[in-house]
């Protein structure tokens, strides 16, 4: 197996009484595309948000490129031991609701973090952003404000914005769930291309077809644990677990 990019050990997370993650172990190799499936409330989005420490796990450890970025707060180390800068400059995330900055143009959405966080000169940041936006098919939208764009276009800007930080890995949190059906493909195409270029990706999705085609590995989660995982053919075509079968039955029947 290739070099490990990301390794999760015994991740626990609760919101008040609700235990959302109950001991998740996951190892992701460099260049691997992992699709995470599961019913809503299974903890898959929370898992992504734990990885980049938007929701730090309570227990468990996360290693990024071998570096321990977060021992859970309950392991006795404080917030100061979290490697926020390290993880966020290496792992990009794209959200279901896009979350573009509405007061900035498309171009400025993409250049803001490279300029403000990495200190890149304006011209360099603009050149890179322009190239990225061209790559996601939005070369003609640079000076538009996000509200003028369709959902699919906004989501592609969000992908370009995350890529502008030169991430080693990308997290996708149900990025097509808020889109009209006819706009889903243009976003999936960008992700497909990204996967083809060898980007390490963890994709939380309901797009079974996409998972089948693009994923190196499919992970099925339910009630805060990983129920089963394997190649798309194993998990999607011949699931071993009853819960996986039931879920796939529900999703595919629709």
């Amino acid at each position, binding site marked *: 197996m290739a070099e490990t990019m990301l390794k999760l050990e015994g991740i626990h997370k609760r919101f008040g009484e609700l235990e959302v993650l109950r001991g998740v172990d996951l190892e992701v190799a460099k260049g691997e595309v992992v699709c995470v499936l599961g019913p809503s409330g299974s903890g898959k989005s929370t898992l992504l948000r734990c990885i*980049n420490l*938007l929701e730090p796990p309570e227990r468990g450890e996360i290693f990024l490129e071998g570096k321990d970025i977060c021992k859970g707060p309950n392991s006795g180390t404080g*917030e100061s031991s979290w490697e926020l*800068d390290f993880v*966020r*400059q290496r792992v*990009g*995330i794209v*959200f279901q*609701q896009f*979350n*573009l*900055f*509405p*007061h900035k143009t498309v171009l400025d959405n993409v250049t*803001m*973090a490279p300029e*403000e*966080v*990495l200190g890149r000169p304006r011209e360099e940041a603009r050149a890179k952003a322009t190239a990225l936006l061209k790559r996601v098919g939005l070369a003609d939208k640079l000076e538009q*404000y*996000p*509200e003028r764009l369709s959902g699919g276009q906004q989501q592609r800007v*969000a992908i370009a*914005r*995350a890529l502008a*930080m030169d991430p080693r890995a990308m997290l996708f949190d149900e990025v097509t769930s808020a889109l009209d059906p006819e706009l889903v493909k243009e976003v999936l195409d960008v992700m497909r291309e990204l996967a083809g270029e060898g980007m390490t990706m963890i994709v939380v999705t309901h797009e079974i077809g996409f998972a089948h085609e693009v994923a190196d590995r499919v992970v099925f989660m339910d009630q805060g644990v990983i129920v089963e995982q394997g190649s798309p053919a194993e998990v999607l075509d011949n699931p071993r677990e009853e819960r996986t079968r039931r879920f796939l039955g529900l999703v595919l029947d629709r």
Partner: protein
Amino acid sequence: MSEVIHQFFDVGFMGEHFDEVLEGFWLTIQLFFVAAVLSLAWGLILALLRQLPGRGFLPVRFLTIAYIDVFRAIPLLILILLIATGIPSLDFLPESLRIPEWFGKPDPFWYGTLALTITYGAYMAEVYRAGIEAVPQGQMEAARSLGMNHRKAMRHVIVPQAIGKVFALMKDTTLVSVIALNEVVLVGQDIQSETFNSSALTLGGLMFLVLILPMARLTDRLIARNQGRIARGAHIEVA
């Protein structure tokens, strides 16, 4: 009837005292602008202090909230009187602070500025807070996930959108109503208590009418023009 007209609308009387009232009116306008700029800035500082994250800033947040609550509760008039009578008596302060006459303005001007800034800063902090809270949570998350720290995320993402929302919230009312407070009323009262004629007060009121009616219309037009951009949470261009 003629008594009423004499008491409130004595044109000759108005003419006699026009210069005095106009001077008070002009001073009020200046006071308003200085205090408005200062309370906008002070309110933003308070709102940002209130938003500081983490356990370490708990005392700062607590003190800020206490300040905002206390000075919204104390009536402005009492605060003005406290300042105007209290500060000159603080002997340990140098004279230039006790009886400030900066930029050729009399000391009541600066006591008024201080009182207005203290009070309206507290109010503005709440308005900014409403603006900040109106910015969706996802904006902060997006900024943080791109590696920005809290300060940068506030500065580049949250505050610009919050200010757009604040302008939309305030519309034309809050700032304009601040004007109708001070000097001109006081000048009018002085003249009335000396002469028992209210026409000077009426004159002051008319001056405000002349100023504020066009301002209100102008504000409406600016708001209409910027509506689209405000909806996006963008900066307002007051030009």
